[in-house]
């Protein structure tokens, strides 16, 4: 198992946001997290790269293993963890830098200065995120000059450049038009060969199209977790059934 969580609870001060989540995720799969707004999908996603640590008053109990290592252990280096677990956010959030420097950022902050190496890695990452052809002639231009969809693929390239093994995506296409969304979905399918992907989405069809496994969250609980096909055709829990048939959420 690539990722294993056992009885994970998370509190925002007094608010119990995740309730005893136990889940196993194997390598080179896409796992979709679905559920109504406010049910804890993003919170759970941010457990894996310890992004919740930034928020005052957060308390986490339970175990989270990545490649067999407890990531909330005191021995775990948080910067190394984040190098291994890349993240793509809901809204494209490129840095106020050039296209090239956006992709090179992760390498630079991790102490890599070899110019040739950086150039090669940037180009490869942009190829992987299917953006290379669109930006190869304007690498020095500001990242803000790209369209929203291009910016999001740039953010994916930025995450890929430091060669993580896991990529977390929090509704990566929710701010994009249908064509850009299709491109991102295609990309996820491609990336699955080399990466383990966890994607939060409120778009049922999208979950059905891109994921191998799906977890349904409701009020901080993992109600049902199974193969995507089963969740969408034959869920065991009536609340899952109600949600995917659009009766609530």
């Amino acid at each position: 198992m690539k990722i294993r969580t056992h009885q994970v609870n998370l509190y925002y001060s007094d608010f119990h946001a995740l309730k005893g989540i136990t889940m196993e995720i194997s390598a080179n799969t896409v796992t979709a997290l679905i559920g109504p707004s406010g049910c804890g999908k993003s919170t759970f996603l941010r457990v894996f790269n310890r992004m919740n640590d930034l928020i005052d008053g957060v308390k986490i109990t339970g175990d989270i293993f990545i490649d067999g290592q407890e990531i909330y252990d005191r021995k775990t280096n948080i910067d190394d963890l984040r190098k291994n677990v890349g993240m793509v956010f809901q809204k494209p959030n490129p840095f106020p830098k050039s296209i090239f420097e956006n992709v090179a950022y992760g390498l630079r902050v991790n102490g890599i200065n070899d110019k040739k190496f950086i150039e090669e890695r940037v180009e490869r990452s942009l190829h992987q995120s299917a953006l290379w052809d669109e930006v190869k002639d304007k690498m020095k231009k500001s990242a803000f000059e790209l369209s929203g969809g291009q910016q999001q693929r740039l953010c994916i390239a930025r995450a890929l450049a430091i060669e993580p093994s896991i990529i977390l995506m929090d509704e990566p296409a929710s701010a994009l038009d249908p064509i850009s969304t299709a491109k991102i979905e295609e990309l996820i399918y491609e990336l699955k060969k080399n990466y383990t992907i966890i994607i939060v989405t409120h778009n049922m069809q999208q979950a059905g199209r891109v994921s191998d496994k799906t977890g349904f969250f409701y009020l901080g609980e993992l109600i049902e977790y199974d193969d995507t096909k089963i969740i969408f055709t034959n869920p065991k829990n009536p609340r899952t059934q109600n949600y995917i048939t659009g009766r609530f959420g």
Partner: protein
Amino acid sequence: MKRFFRRFIEKFIEGIFFLSSSVTTLTVLLIVVFLFREGMGVFNKTPIEEGFAIALNKNNSVKEISSLDMKNIFDQNITNWKTLGGNNDSIILFRIDDISNYFTDEQLGDSLQYVPKCISSLVDSLTGIIAFIPEKYIDKHFAGRKLPMDKISVGKFLSGKEWFPTAQPASQLGVLPLILGTLWVSLMAILIALPLGLATAIYMAEIASEKVRRILKPLIELLAGIPSVVYGFFGLIVIVPLIQKVFDLPVGETGLAGSIVLGIMALPTIITISEDAIRTTPRAMKEASLALGANKWQTIARVIIPYSMSGITAAAILGIGRAIGETMAVLMVTGNAAVIPHTILEPVRTIPATIAAELGEAPQGGLHYEALFALGCILFILTMATNLLVEYISKKRKYNKQ
């Protein structure tokens, strides 16, 4: 009836608002017009005191004497006409008070009616003479040559290296030392205040806990409320002696003392504005950086500061703006020597300090008085330029952030 009344009240209030805004606009315009009208009076006048003239022997080949040379002659720094391209002949100074050394009371006449004739013959007889005399004592058949004096031009005013408006016989109205003094002190102040202010702003926005911030913030606002004289006292009692000791100087009143005091005064502006700018960095931007394995400091240096750069620049320029216009504290600690500063460890004098110190002793409407107003115009232009720069930069900022 009621409706009519309400409309009347509305119109009335509208009128009051219109009136107050026009009065404000008019006042601002009036101040500027007044400043420039008084200030421009200094140009196209001669630096010689009104009603006085300079005269030479008619055989003297010197055609023109700049006002700086004039000062050097009367200070006896120049003692031979050779220096000015004339004949090899010692310069003999003659002021009207010296007349009793050459003539008896009898010769001058009991109602001084022969003074013009005496002066005329004196100037004729001494080849090396330079006479500084009232116009009214110049004879109809004057045997000497009245020297035409250069008018004060904008260029000379700005590039002149000597500020000595009460010099006799010719005022020295060169504002270059004052402009340079102002710029030096202000720039140094920013060099001192910017790193300190930026560090504080970053600390408050990104590092300090909410509790610490709640204590720090009012303290910094308090700093902004302290009157400038108090900063001056602080500078005089603490910073001036310290500088004197540390750099082993004859006097501690230096440009550096002024810069430090101004730097402290500019801190609240710099801290408040750059903290606001830093706070506008979107959370997602910071998280993106951290998610790529950057630590807190790398995120601050590589993402947060570049993102808030234009706000930080605006903070720095507004800080300079305050420093340029500041009078009292600077007057108290800089030593006020109107010479071009070569190092920051010499006494310097700024424009506002000059105006504050000299306006009281300058006779109204006189050359000195008008020169001080011209200084005011220069200060106005300097501060307006910084304000325009801020506006330009903050416009650019809006454009940059999509």
